[in-house]
């Protein structure tokens, strides 16, 4: 029972936090989208195309943020063997992969009108693509190992190895990109961003973070409940043996 004491407390907290996180997510995303799509000014170079930024940039931030959280959770799981940390890392991975896909797809949609092509082997795009592979590898390893304890430890090690490698990969891809002379030049270093654009951008970023929190809490909760069911089933299947 002691093993479940912690998760039980977690479930209570999660159930209390989730409605608020969900409500705040909806408010932030709604206000952010209305401001971003309706009221923020168009870019003087890119026109209305720039509005895709309000989805693209927060998604890209979240892709990195979620991977970082996974690495932290994995370190906690490995060092202190905290059972919830394993679950948090596992629950985060598909969400992070989702953000990464959103960042890539919106980036591609943005690239078409701006650069005239759907895909450029630009340093940022390439490193985000590799980040997606890191996520997919992590998820695949979770699914490949049947024993949950083993899977938790192996994936935690993988997350940390990946985390150590992210800066190296980023650095090497940047180096590679300057070597290869990109076909088009990014316009990210434009004029410092104006307040009317910054407010919706930050609102969207906060909304994405709250969305992540709400979803990750739900996923952890479901995983705990699923494990309890499995444990109860196991217990039930052992009952007859005791009667013998």
């Amino acid at each position, binding site marked *: 029972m002691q093993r479940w004491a912690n998760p039980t407390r977690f479930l209570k907290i999660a159930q209390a936090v989730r409605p608020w996180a969900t409500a705040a997510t909806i408010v932030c995303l709604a206000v952010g989208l209305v401001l971003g799509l309706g009221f923020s000014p168009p870019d003087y170079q890119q026109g209305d195309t720039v509005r895709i930024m309000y989805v693209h940039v927060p998604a890209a931030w979240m892709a990195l943020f979620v991977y970082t959280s996974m690495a932290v959770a994995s370190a906690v799981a490995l060092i202190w063997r905290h059972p919830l940390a394993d679950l948090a890392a596992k629950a985060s991975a598909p969400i992070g992969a989702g953000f990464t896909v959103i960042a890539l797809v919106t980036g591609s949609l943005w690239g078409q009108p701006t650069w005239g092509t759907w895909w450029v082997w630009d340093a940022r795009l390439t490193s985000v693509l590799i980040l997606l592979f890191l996520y997919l590898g992590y998820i695949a390893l979770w699914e490949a190992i049947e*024993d949950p304890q083993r899977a938790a430890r192996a994936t935690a090690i993988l997350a940390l190895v990946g985390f150590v490698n992210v800066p190296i990969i980023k650095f090497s891809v940047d180096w590679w990109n300057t070597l290869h002379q990109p076909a088009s030049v990014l316009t990210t270093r434009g004029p410092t961003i104006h307040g009317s654009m910054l407010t919706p951008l930050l609102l969207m970023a906060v909304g994405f973070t709250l969305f992540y929190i709400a979803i990750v809490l739900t996923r952890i909760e479901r995983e705990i409940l699923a494990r309890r069911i*499995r444990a109860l089933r196991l217990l039930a299947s052992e009952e007859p*043996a005791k009667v013998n």
Partner: protein
Amino acid sequence: MSGGLAVVGASRRVRAAHYATERPRRPVAALLARRGELAQYDGPRFGEAVFVTLQAIDLTCIRGERMIFSGLTFSVAPGRALLVRGPNGVGKTSLLRLLAGLNAPAVGQVRWAGGSLAGRVSYVGHLDAIKAALTLRENLAFWLAYRGHNRSLAAALDALGIAHLIDMPTRYLSAGQRRRAALAKLLLVDAPVWLLDEPVSSLDGRGIEVFMVALRRHLAEGGVAVLSTHQELAIDEAETLTLGRNP
């Protein structure tokens, strides 16, 4: 009885002869340890000045999501063995792997001289750890070198009755012969703690006899052994731990 083992290594030959005169003999240290004192004693084999007790404290084992056993506490004094018994699936292998340090206990600890057992264990599991592509000599010579020992193979192989197979690729060995080879490693490697999972499975009567000689000698020298078995093994120095389903 010690005849089969009297030839394991040059230095051991002397000791074996010594034991032959006054066997069966409990090490002084074991007796002192039981009185709660640890004696300074020149352990001939294990390079440890003090004979120590293997202690398992409040061990809990969880595999998958299943609690296998919990609150298991016992100690094995030097010169003593622990026979782990119980039906299949009750956690005998789990317990041995836990003692060896291959698995981490969910709760509890395994202690040896106040520290850990790491590096002091000879473990024989279900797998014989023998490379099919290599000969018996190459296999055992590797483990000798890997554990940093420098002694002749022939004696141990002779003791286990597999000396004639020494240059045969191990893929041609029978299950019983492979098991004997795995047990030969016990004799070659100096480890104070033997953890043996079904050591006599697939051994014939003669094989079991030879194994028992080796085990008694190990215990007589102040070693500790924990072994799981389904067979009846007559070991005077052994306590029995029966694992069962929780009442």
